């Protein structure tokens, strides 16, 4: 039972990541492409991490996996924001002057 639940969660996460990556390949607009980056780290990663934790049970390996997924989760949103600002700066939509 635990194996099936873990595998189902991991499969769902893998599906999210695969769809986001294929979608990023198909869309042309750079902002749409940036938008498709978020599901990988904010939905696919946690699903895979929780699925592997359910499969393995509580232990050092599970904590390591959850830590990796947490780093990916936090860094994904920061990187998306920084890249969005870079795109807007280079398009001239926002100023690149330092704030006073």
């Amino acid at each position, binding site marked *: 039972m635990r194996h099936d639940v873990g*595998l189902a969660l991991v499969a769902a996460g893998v599906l999210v990541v*695969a769809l986001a990556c*294929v979608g990023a390949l198909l869309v042309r607009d750079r902002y749409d492409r940036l938008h498709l980056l978020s599901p990988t780290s904010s939905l696919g*990663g946690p699903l895979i991490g929780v699925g592997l934790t359910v499969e393995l049970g509580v232990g050092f*390996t599970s904590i390591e996996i959850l830590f990796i997924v947490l780093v*990916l989760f936090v*860094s994904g949103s920061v990187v998306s924001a920084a*890249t969005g600002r870079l795109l807007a700066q280079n398009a001239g939509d926002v100023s690149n002057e330092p704030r006073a």
Partner: protein
Amino acid sequence: MTGYTVCTAVLLLGGVAPALAVASRGTPEERLIGLELVSSAAVLFMLVLSQAIGQSFYLSVPLVLAPLSFAGTLVFTRLLGRRGPS
């Protein structure tokens, strides 16, 4: 072939491969988005791979890759930004 092996193959072919294609074409900003996608997909690929082959010490690679790709991407966003008037 176990379910985790299939998940690993799907992640490699449906996640890492398209992300590599995104990272290899377009403007520098578009390729940076592809690089971010490759990093995320590669970290998750190695997580599932370690479970598929039953070797937990393989987790050391994503453990290092996740923070390093974060720092590297922030450096790229800084370097690719247009310079202001001097």
